[in-house]
């Protein structure tokens, strides 16, 4: 073998060796990882993105931005919140709303409108004061505005885009968002007024348990006794209190993000707001149905302030007995009498002989 041939052989062997090393060396970390388990060999890329995505938990870096969560690059809880909204809140809430609406429709088909069994008596019984009715409709108005705009924000993408198109939905959603946020802070006022004016008489008692056991007297031939408020009305009142406080509190947290609340608090507030809103709206469907078209004579209590004596006897027999005893059945809805009864005007010093002397 001449000298040149020897040199070429060496060169070939060196090349094979280098090639082998090029192929084998990168495999060493994998081999080590295979033996020692994952994580033994740090991967700079994976480590960087693990840090960015904060898979080990939320962490804050350092930033010149002086703001709440200003040094958080990516909020790891955002995805969890997004998945809850899209995979649970929207579909489950939607089915709940549709289901309850269908149940009410079915109830209507089977039971029909709950009639006044004894017909109209022509006698009236005073039920709600002017202030109670004003506060009720005030809360109802704000509730409906908030519910409708809230549902547009939650379900509009699925329901309204096919109807209005993207442009139409964009304008509707923008308007709904502004209305929802602007009317939102009024709702806590409505809840407080509701509590102040309707708390009295809403304590649960055994009569309510029996009322529930008899399905609230809604089934034919199963009358259920109740006082001024029945079990269903008391349940609705306490729902208004609990749901109202929860939805108001969470709404204010979302509406005014200027008090140091971070994204995680906002996400929790949104979860509470969304869940409670769905439950609140669902429950309200039953209240609205039975209070308006579902039961003969019921709506007059909130529009006129008076109910027919037979309605009172059939649905609130214990209260009716008290009113009868007090001589309050058959009171004519005379405007001045009604004003006096509600005690809205301070008549002291007016209309009495002594008053004229004082004025003179």
């Amino acid at each position: 073998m001449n000298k040149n041939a020897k040199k070429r052989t060496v060169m070939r062997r060196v090349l094979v060796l280098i090639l082998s090393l090029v192929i084998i060396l990168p495999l060493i970390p994998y081999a080590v990882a295979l033996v020692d388990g994952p994580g033994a060999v740090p991967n700079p890329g994976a480590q960087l993105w693990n840090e960015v995505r904060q898979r080990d938990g939320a962490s804050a870096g350092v930033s010149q931005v002086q703001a709440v969560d200003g040094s958080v690059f990516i909020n790891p809880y955002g995805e969890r919140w997004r998945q809850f909204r899209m995979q649970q809140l929207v579909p489950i809430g939607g089915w709940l709303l549709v289901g309850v609406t269908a149940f009410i429709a079915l109830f209507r088909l089977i039971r029909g409108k709950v009639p006044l069994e004894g017909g109209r008596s022509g006698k009236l019984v005073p039920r709600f004061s002017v202030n109670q009715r004003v506060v009720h409709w005030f809360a109802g108005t704000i509730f409906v505005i908030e519910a409708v705009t809230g549902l547009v924000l939650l379900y509009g993408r699925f329901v309204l885009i096919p109807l209005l198109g993207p442009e139409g939905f964009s304008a509707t959603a923008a308007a709904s968002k502004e209305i929802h946020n602007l009317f939102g802070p009024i709702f806590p006022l409505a809840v407080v007024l509701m509590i102040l004016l309707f708390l009295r008489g809403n304590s649960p008692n055994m009569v309510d348990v029996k009322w529930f056991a008899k399905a609230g007297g809604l089934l034919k031939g199963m009358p259920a006794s109740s006082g001024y408020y029945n079990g269903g009305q008391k349940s609705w009142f306490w729902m208004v209190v609990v749901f109202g406080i929860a939805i108001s509190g969470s709404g204010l947290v979302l509406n005014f993000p200027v008090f140091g609340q971070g994204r995680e608090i906002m996400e929790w507030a949104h979860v509470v707001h969304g869940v409670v809103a769905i439950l609140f709206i669902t429950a309200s469907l039953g209240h609205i149905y039975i209070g308006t078209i579902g039961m003969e004579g019921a709506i007059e209590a909130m529009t006129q302030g008076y109910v027919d004596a037979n309605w009172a006897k059939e649905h609130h027999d214990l209260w009716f007995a008290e009113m009868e005893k007090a001589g309050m059945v058959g009171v004519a809805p005379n405007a001045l009498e009604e004003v006096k009864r509600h005690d809205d005007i301070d008549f002291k010093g007016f209309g009495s002989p002594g008053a004229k002397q004082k004025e003179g």
Partner: protein
Amino acid sequence: MFLEFVEGPLWYIALTIFVVGVVLRLLDVFRSGVRTDLAPPRREGLGGALRTLVTRSWTAPGFTRGAAFHLVAGYMFHLGLFVLLFFAAPHVLFIEERLLGFGWTPVPYWAFILAANFAFAGLILVWLRRVMHPVMRRISTLDDHLAVILTFIAMFTGCMALFQHHDSLRAIHMLTVEVLMIYFPFSRLMHAFTFAISRSYTGAAMARKGINA
């Protein structure tokens, strides 16, 4: 097209009807004159006019409890609307660009939200009271209800247009405001101008008779 119409010709038509209508109504009030009082005045009328202007801003003694609702809700609405009308940022800009040529500092966003809450809550409450109270219901006319409804719609559409990215929403707000402006001189909404005249007249007339009205 629609936006151009409501921001152009219709705006000028509404503004003209509003200004001319209000001026004619006020001239009508002033032209009706004052009855000649032959008795020597016991006091100067001006003091009484100013006094009544202030005292009628509160309830008369004996009526405070009964009128508390109207007092609170009424002021909530009127003060809220005043702030919205003259100090909301989009309105200040509109006044500067389309009416006066100069503007002023608008209220911060939180104050705007608060004013809007007060205005909406107050308006809904006073109107519900009007509908629910047996006496109020009987003395209310179609004009009262129409004025409230038009005002509410104008405020509501303004709220809808807050996002300011959709011309259609702004056009709807402009249209409702213009309808309200056209209706204004023919309605009890004129009390926005006449309340001061009415109170001053009563105060001055009573002062001359020696009565604290």
